[in-house]
């Protein structure tokens, strides 16, 4: 996504400049960025709650009355609150959900979260956001994998193409729509995605999968898990795939095929019931075809360690450190204005090293305060080799981020909780940022929760906002520039939610929001014409403000033991405008390429003879995208995915998956043009085997 974006964007500017259609969308797209981010330990660490011993109805039924009387109703380990009672707009995708969806990569699996907008832009790039602002370089969503932030300070968004794992070993994905700045820090403006892989203890033994098909041409993956010592578990895994080109509207190849290989390990040690250590690491490398020519190379790796200790039911702490490295080599086309070539084609590289350390402590005070606080530090070192047509200045940038947060959950009454907290961060671009929130939660019954929240979150500047030069400084004319005075974008969000297990078979949730944004990125020009009589350079400012509101509704219905239905519907209304007396060459159209409505219905059937049959229908409303002040659309569409799986013997599964079955190809993103990439129908077969 990065490369196409950067490219498209450069191309659009060039076209604009040469008097063709003013296609500024790309640049605008480049939203600002936030820097920082978060920490927090994530799930796996402190609060992990794997059951220490087998339990459940199957075990209990075999027990005598005496044994039953000996069981503890509550688990010893700190018990996180049931999902039903979480005071936030959260949806949880389980590993099983992912397997049954037929998703072959992490970004595809994000379609399972109804509170996300997911648009595939080409073979290897996705636009993913929550509650709007799904521009080409969407930048208001924070994503963590096992506690490691995967956002890039280049544009404050996520390169979804390189976020993946052996999906079999994903434990769950928690998708929170709404601000999470108080806990997670800058960039968690409209949502947080927390991806958690399984504990190595739960992935013992050998697993392998392989297959191929029309778009996903071939793929394979394997994992082996074992023990290193008593209570020390490990796994190693690898995965590889090759994807074919998608197509343009006329059916010709978009030349965007890609392949990616990755591998990694995870070690989990539990020397005692109270103490856990995790050490994990991954490495990946891939090649991606770029529709405007050439291939991008991506690679990266990380290593993460986490120690957590439970002192008692009401007190625990964790310490996490990681190092992460990403590399990108991206072909950048020439910058051409009319008959003049401002800068020749070239190569942009981006190398980012991140070191991060986080500490968190949780304890109870006076029986009615549940307090969590933490400290974090992050150092990033980014080096660019600039292309003639696209540059970041300075080419080398070191940044420090210091953060601290405290949050107190106060029990006002038996089932009424007030949570107050704030994060305070210091970043090298804008200094101190404060992100407070207040949440009120009322557990009406054990099966019903009402909650309300007010939060502030910020998106701090990215390198695009501050350091961009397009083309680079060697060119006779710069078309678009970052702005050293670019400030943080802010939101104040008001939320109201209800979640209930209405009957044992029916679970539902409704989350409504009203978001008030300020200092959103605009693209502006000085009114003075330059030597060419043109209004260049354009540069970024914070000239937009506005509101969004809407709601997210979901329901899970267990029709029968063997048949589950899931439905989701989102409504989003956006009203962004240029601040009085200010300007934006895009008329405030560039930040909101979002469907006003979308819905999905999924069905999961467990049929006789070990057959699973799953279908997912989705409808996405029209997207309005801009080209400068001109609006274009991606038409609304229905699409259907289906999966049929059969286990002839235990541990062996054969499956056939069809994705986007309703059209030969359909666009999900992009301003209308002959080179907008459309997504093809895809069918693949898969065999998986474990022992």
């Amino acid at each position, binding site marked *: 996504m990065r490369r196409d974006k950067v490219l498209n964007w450069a191309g659009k500017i060039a076209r604009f400049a040469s008097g063709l259609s003013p296609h500024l969308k790309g640049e605008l797209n480049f939203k600002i960025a936030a820097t920082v981010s978060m920490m927090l330990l994530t799930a796996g660490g402190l609060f992990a709650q794997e059951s220490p011993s087998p339990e459940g109805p199957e075990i209990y*039924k075999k027990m005598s009355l005496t044994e039953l009387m000996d*069981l503890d109703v509550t688990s010893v380990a700190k018990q996180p609150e049931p*999902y039903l009672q979480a005071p936030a707009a959260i949806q949880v995708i389980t590993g099983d959900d992912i397997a049954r969806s037929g998703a072959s990569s992490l970004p595809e699996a994000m379609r399972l979260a109804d509170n996300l907008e997911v648009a595939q832009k080409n073979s290897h790039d996705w636009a993913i956001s929550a509650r709007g602002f799904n521009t080409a370089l969407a930048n208001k969503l924070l994503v963590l994998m096992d506690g490691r932030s995967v956002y890039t300070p280049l544009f404050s968004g996520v390169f979804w193409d390189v976020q993946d794992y052996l999906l079999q070993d994903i434990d769950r994905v928690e998708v929170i729509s709404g601000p999470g700045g108080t806990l997670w820090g800058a960039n968690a403006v409209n949502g947080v995605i927390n991806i958690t892989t399984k504990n190595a203890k739960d992935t013992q033994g050998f697993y392998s999968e392989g297959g191929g098909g029309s778009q996903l041409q071939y793929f394979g993956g394997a994992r082996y898990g074992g023990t290193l010592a008593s209570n020390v578990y490990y796994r190693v895994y690898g995965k590889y795939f090759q994807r074919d080109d998608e197509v343009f509207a006329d059916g010709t190849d978009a030349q965007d095929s890609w392949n990616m290989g990755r591998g990694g390990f995870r070690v989990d040690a539990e020397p005692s019931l109270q103490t856990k250590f995790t050490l994990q690491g991954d490495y990946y490398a891939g090649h991606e075809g770029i529709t405007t020519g050439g291939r991008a190379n991506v690679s990266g790796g990380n290593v993460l360690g986490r120690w957590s200790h439970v002192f008692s039911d009401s007190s625990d702490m964790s310490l996490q450190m990681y190092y992460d490295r990403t590399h990108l080599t991206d072909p950048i086309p020439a910058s051409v204005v009319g008959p003049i070539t401002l800068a020749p084609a070239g190569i942009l590289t981006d190398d980012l090293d991140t070191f991060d350390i986080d500490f968190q402590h949780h304890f109870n005070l006076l029986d009615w305060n549940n307090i969590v606080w933490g400290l974090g530090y992050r150092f990033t070192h980014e080096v660019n080799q600039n292309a003639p047509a696209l540059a970041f200045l300075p080419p080398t940038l070191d940044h420090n981020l210091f953060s601290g947060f405290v949050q107190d959950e106060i029990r006002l009454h038996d089932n009424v909780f007030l949570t107050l907290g704030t994060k305070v961060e210091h970043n090298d671009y804008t200094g101190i940022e404060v992100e407070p929130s207040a949440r009120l939660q009322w557990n009406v019954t054990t099966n019903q929760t009402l909650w309300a929240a007010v939060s502030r979150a910020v998106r701090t500047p990215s390198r695009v906002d501050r350091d961009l030069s397009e083309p680079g400084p060697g060119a006779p004319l710069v078309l678009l520039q970052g702005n050293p005075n670019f400030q943080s974008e802010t939101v104040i969000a008001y939320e109201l939610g209800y979640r209930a297990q209405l009957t044992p078979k029916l679970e539902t949730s409704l989350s409504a929001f009203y978001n008030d944004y300020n200092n959103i990125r605009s693209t502006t020009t000085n009114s003075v014409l330059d030597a060419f009589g043109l209004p260049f350079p354009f540069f970024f400012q914070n000239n937009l403000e506005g509101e969004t509101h809407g709601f997210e509704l979901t329901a899970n219905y267990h029709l029968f033991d063997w048949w589950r239905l899931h439905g989701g519907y989102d409504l989003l209304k956006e009203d962004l405008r240029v601040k009085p007396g200010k300007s934006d060459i895009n008329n405030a159209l560039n930040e909101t390429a979002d469907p006003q409505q979308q819905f999905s219905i999924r069905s999961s059937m467990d049929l006789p003879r070990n057959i699973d049959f799953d279908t997912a229908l989705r409808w996405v409303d029209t997207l309005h995208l801009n080209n400068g002040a001109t609006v274009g659309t991606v038409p609304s569409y229905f699409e259907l995915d289906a999966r049929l799986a059969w286990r002839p013997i235990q541990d062996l599964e054969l499956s056939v998956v069809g994705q986007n079955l309703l059209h030969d190809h359909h666009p999900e993103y992009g301003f209308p043009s002959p080179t907008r990439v459309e997504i093809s129908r895809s069918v693949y077969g898969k065999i998986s085997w474990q022992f």
Partner: protein
Amino acid sequence: MLIAFLVLLAPFSLRAQSKEYQIKAAFLYNFAQFVLWPETAFTNTDEPFRIGVLGDNPFGKALEEIVHGEKIQGRPIEIVESSSAEKMAGCQIVFVSKSQVPHFGDVSSKLDSKPVLTVSEDAGFIKRGGIINFYRDGTKVRFEINPDAADKKGLKLGSELLSLGKIVRPEAPK
């Protein structure tokens, strides 16, 4: 709550919150092994053994999972869920959810003299004529039994039940 915010559990609430009810469901199934129903409890030999849940079902799917494929007194087991006491008429065990206990007088009259083992988890249940009541002792599940109420219904309680449960006799000689 913060923890929930960060970690959130399993996708499905039932799992997380119902360990207590999984245990109670196992108790229910176990009780059946130590109670002898009179022949009049069944209208014919093919009739299944029915366990009723009156009112909100706090067990989720745990009860179904526990009785799945099992038999009681040679009969396959059927779970009946309803908030109507009439629907409980053919049941041999009826679990009365908390919300229904205040109306247990009415319920009782509808079940009338049928040989039904009534079970609940409300402090007032035995007083209102119930037979077995769950209560919590710290983190453990315990139960109290009123053998007089069982006698009235023609149920014979095994000695294991009587020795493990706390015997209460609200109608004992005054």
